[in-house]
């Protein structure tokens, strides 16, 4: 069947449709570079979605827990063996994603008799200055989106990950307006929570291009936070410690929320 090129293209298209449908309910994750580091944030109740990968690298992911786990484990293995045989300074997110993860995910996606990875991931690597922060979003087909400047967009000091394209684009639109890389932790936390709320409000597929009213965002956030907990972590910019990842508790964050 798949020997015919047309069938192959059709199979790929079906597979894409299936994966998008599976990922669509995924709760958004926002990653914001601020003055003292990079903040990862999501809101949820059950599964952990934000992980430490290496000294300066963290990951957030949505998708099937089994697939996320295999990719996470692979990323940690690759980074750890590189850091051990050479040095921690040689571990680079760019190389990890471009040379190791992306090719593997692409070939799994295109070998239509085998299972694809049902996962969408957001990686960040903290730099010495906010301008050196790197954000990479990796799709189930190995596609990579970066925060770097292209002909179509200026460099961004944040990244968003969500179940649907509409949701992610609205989050990005919001952060482009509201977030600056020199902001404090508290400001970044509030921007991240608002971005999450916007992403979560517009998860269902659609064509909305306009950001919701401020009051609606606040109300949505308050409703969601009644039951769900905030999951967050920072990659600290402070170079005095090798290991920069620190997870943050729901309790310490709630005290910093402004309305």
């Amino acid at each position: 069947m798949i020997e015919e090129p047309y069938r192959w293209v059709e199979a790929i298209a079906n597979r894409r449709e299936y994966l998008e449908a599976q990922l669509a309910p995924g709760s958004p994750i926002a990653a914001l570079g601020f003055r003292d580091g990079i903040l990862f944030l999501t809101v949820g109740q059950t599964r952990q979605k934000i992980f430490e990968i290496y000294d300066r690298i963290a990951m957030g992911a949505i998708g099937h827990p089994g697939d996320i786990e295999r990719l996470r484990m692979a990323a940690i293995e690759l980074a750890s063996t590189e850091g051990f045989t050479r040095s921690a300074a040689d571990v680079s997110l760019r190389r990890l994603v471009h040379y190791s993860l992306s090719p593997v995910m692409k070939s799994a996606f295109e070998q239509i008799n085998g299972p694809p990875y049902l996962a969408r991931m957001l990686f960040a690597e903290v730099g010495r200055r906010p301008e050196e922060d790197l954000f990479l979003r990796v799709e189930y087909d190995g596609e990579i989106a970066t925060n770097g400047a292209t002909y179509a967009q200026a460099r961004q000091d944040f990244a968003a990950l969500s179940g649907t394209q509409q949701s992610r684009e609205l989050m990005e639109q919001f952060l482009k307006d509201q977030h600056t890389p020199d902001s404090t932790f508290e400001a970044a936390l509030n921007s991240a929570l608002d971005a999450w709320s916007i992403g979560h409000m517009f998860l269902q597929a659609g064509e909305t291009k306009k950001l919701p009213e401020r009051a609606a965002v606040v109300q949505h956030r308050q409703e969601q936070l009644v039951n769900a907990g905030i999951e967050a972590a920072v990659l600290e910019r402070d170079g005095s410690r090798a290991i920069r990842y620190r997870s943050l508790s729901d309790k310490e964050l709630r005290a910093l929320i402004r309305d």
Partner: protein
Amino acid sequence: MERAPVGFDQNSSGAAGDFPSLLRRKGLLGPAAIAPMPQAGAAQKIWEQTEATTILAFKFSGGVLVAGDRRATAGNTVVYDRADKVLEIDRHSIMAIAGVPATAWEMARVLEHSLQYFRRTQLQEMSVDGKVRALSKLLRDNFGFVMQGVGVVVPIFATYKGNSKPEARLYFYDAMGAQFEATDYAATGSGSPAVRGILYYENHWGAKPLHKLSENEAVSVALRALDTAAESDTATGGVDRSGKIYPLIKIVSREGITTLPESKIAAVFKETVA
């Protein structure tokens, strides 16, 4: 269909979270090499291996103090006088080494990565007992070398865990990997007999027992002990008064690890030792 992606090990569930076995699987950590036994009549000792010497650790009021002199020797040659024998493994653990630095530093590197790897893959900290055992396994893996007369390492491991009894934990090892928990103090290396004598004396008949000493008093005891060791053991550097080279001293406490600045050590030395 086989997914078999490059660089991925599909068989690894990671459930063990064991970094040395990952390194072995990737061929990055070999089993202990077995060199042929020397032939009868052949020169028995061809080269002198570099060795690091005296280290000590004891519990005091602020946690555990770990100190090491700075000398590395090969036979009767001083190879290096600024060797670092007190190594940080994670935020609350220190490994201090006496023995062959080539092996010891590699061991410390494996241990450090093992603990990070465990935390990252398993999403929890390794227990103190797990850490102590991890070092023991590394020593045992190295025993093939030790039997050939190279690469012997005798470390001390100090760690601190709040809310556990006792909070400060101190272990010393033999070359085969047996771990011994020390209640008050530990010392290993060529200068250790003198150091143990001093620490025993201080603990029993000193102004106060070691665990009641303040930080400055503890530093003073450590400097005196290393200076005494250096007095009779040529392999121990002690305090180099002319070169102004002081022992390396680190403290593990609830807050983590502090490396004492040289200026502070110099001040205590000037006041109570010199």
